[in-house]
C-alpha cells in the first residue's frame, strides 16, 4: 500500500532520531551519527552544560558538546556510552520534486513526522549566521516546533539532510547529508571547524567616489582595515591599516560577511589575491591564507 511506505520509512528513523534538550524552551531533535555521537542544530544548543539526549528507550541520557559550527548551524553531541544506532545516509542526493519525510523527537514519548517535498536545491548561499552554505534543500514542509536537528529522510528511511529553521530567518531548510556528515566528521576529530585566516580587523566604509572607477564595477562599499595583526598572512603580504579591502579571490568584498564567506575552510592554506585600494590606486596583493 502507498501509505505504508511512509510509515515504514519513519520506522527506520525511529532508532536514530533523538531528542536534544539543551535549551529552556521545547527540546529540539538530533540524528545519530555514530554509536556515541549526535548531529543536531547549533541554534538548539542554548546551554552547554546539562545537555541531555532522549532515545527511543524513553530515557534521557547525559551528553556533552563535542563541537559546534554556528555558521552552518550544526553541532555534535557526545554521549557517555555508545547507545546509539547510527543513521544511514542516502546513497543518492536529494532532487527537486522528491517526496520525503521530516522526522523529529521533540517529546520523549515517540517520534513525530511530517510530509516534505524538496521544492528547490539551492546554494552556495551566505547564511544569516555568517557562513557560506554550499548547498541546501528548500522544503515544502511544516516547520513544527522541535523539528530542527531532525532528519529529512527518503522512503527507504535513509537520511537526505538535517533540517533546520535557524539558518535563513525561519525558513525551513535541510542541510544536505553529505555536508552535514563532513562537518560532523571534522567536529568529531578536531572539536571545531578550521577556516581560512587573513589576520585583519575591518569596518565597512563607503569607497571614496574618486576611487570607485578603479574597481571597474559597481561597488560602493569596501572594508577599511583598522588593524593588521602582526605575524599573520595579511601582515606578511604587506597589507596596512587604512587600506580598503575591496575584493578577494576575484570576488567583491563589501562587508565582513563577504570576507568570512570567502575564507571558507577549503581556502585555508591556499594562495589567493586580495584587491586593495591604497593612496588613490588599486593594487592586487598575493596572500597565502592561513588557517585557524
Amino acid at each position: 500500500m502507498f501509505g505504508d511506505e511512509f510509515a515504514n520509512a519513519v520506522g527506520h528513523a525511529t532508532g536514530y532520531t533523538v531528542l536534544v534538550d539543551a535549551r529552556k524552551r521545547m527540546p529540539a531533535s538530533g540524528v545519530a551519527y555514530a554509536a556515541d555521537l549526535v548531529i543536531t542544530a547549533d541554534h538548539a544548543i542554548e546551554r552547554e552544560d546539562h545537555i541531555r539526549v532522549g532515545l527511543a528507550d524513553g530515557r534521557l541520557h547525559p551528553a556533552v558538546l563535542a563541537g559546534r559550527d554556528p555558521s552552518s548551524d550544526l553541532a555534535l553531541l557526545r554521549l557517555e556510552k555508545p547507545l546509539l544506532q547510527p543513521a544511514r545516509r542516502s546513497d543518492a542526493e536529494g532532487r527537486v520534486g522528491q517526496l520525503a519525510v521530516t522526522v523529529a523527537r521533540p517529546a520523549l514519548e515517540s517520534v513525530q513526522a511530517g510530509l516534505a517535498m524538496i521544492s528547490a536545491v539551492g546554494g552556495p548561499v551566505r547564511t544569516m549566521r555568517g557562513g557560506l552554505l554550499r548547498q541546501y534543500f528548500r522544503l515544502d514542509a511544516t516547520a513544527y516546533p522541535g523539528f530542527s536537528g531532525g532528519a529529512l529522510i527518503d522512503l527507504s528511511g535513509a537520511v537526505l539532510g538535517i533540517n533546520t529553521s535557524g539558518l535563513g530567518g525561519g525558513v525551513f531548510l535541510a542541510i544536505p547529508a553529505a555536508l552535514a556528515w563532513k562537518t560532523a566528521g571534522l567536529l568529531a576529530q578536531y572539536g571545531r571547524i578550521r577556516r581560512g585566516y587573513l589576520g585583519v580587523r575591518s569596518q565597512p566604509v563607503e569607497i571614496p567616489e574618486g576611487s570607485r572607477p578603479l574597481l571597474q564595477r559597481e561597488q560602493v562599499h569596501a572594508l577599511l582595515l583598522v588593524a593588521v595583526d602582526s605575524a599573520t598572512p595579511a601582515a606578511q603580504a604587506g597589507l596596512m591599516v587604512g587600506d580598503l579591502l575591496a575584493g578577494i579571490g576575484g570576488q567583491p568584498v563589501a562587508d565582513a560577511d563577504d570576507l568570512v564567506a570567502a575564507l571558507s575552510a577549503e581556502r585555508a592554506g591556499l594562495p589567493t589575491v586580495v584587491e586593495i585600494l591604497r593612496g588613490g590606486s588599486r593594487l592586487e596583493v598575493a596572500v597565502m591564507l592561513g588557517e585557524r
Partner: protein
Amino acid sequence: MAAEDRLRVAVLTPAGAIRAGLRVLLQSSERVEILRETNDPDDLTDGLEIDVLVLHAANPPPGGWLAQIPGAAVLLLMADYADGELPLPAELWKRPVGVLPLDVEAQTLHTALAALAEGMSVGLPAWLNRLYPGAAQVTGLAGGVEQGAEALTPREGEVLNALAQGLTNKQIAHSLGISEHTVKYHISSIYSKLEVMNRAEAVRVGARRGWIAI
C-alpha cells in the same frame, strides 16, 4: 558639494612644517574644508562646527578646552609610540578617536576622516591600547561604530575572537586559562553589549565593528 558631504576640519598643531604638510594632505580631497589652523585651543572654542579636530599628539595643550568643542571627533597624529606617553585630555576618550602616524598617506587620512565623521574610531590598535586609559582598553579599536555602542574589555575581546573560531565554552576556557563559568559570564556580557541573542550574531556584529580578526 552638499553641506553634509563636506568634512569640516580644524587643525591644532605647532606652526611649521607639520602644519604645512598636513594642509597639503588635507586639501587633496575636495570634501575637506579647513576651518581653522592654530596652535592655541582657545581659538577653537567659539562655537565652530567641527567634524574632526586634527591634533598633533606631541603637542597636547592641558586643560578642559576639549569639552568646549562638543561633537568633534579627534584625529591624533603621532610621530611614534613615545608621543603616547604625553598626557591627553580625559575628555578625548568619550568620542570617536583616530590614531595615525604622522607620515600617513593621503588616502588613509581621508578614509580615516570619513570614518571619524561617521562616528567610527580608527587607527593602529597597538597605539590605541597604549593610549587608552586603564579599564577602557580595547583589543581591536576604540569606541563603538554605532552611537552608544559599548566597548568590550580586553578579555571580552579575546572571548569574542574565540567565539569567531567556533570554539565551545570549554575550549575557550582551556585556551584562555579561565573557568567555564567565567567564559559564560563574559559571553553574556558580550551579548548584552552587542545586543545579540546568540554566538552567530555576536560574531557577525563583532566582525562588522572591527573587533574580530578575520
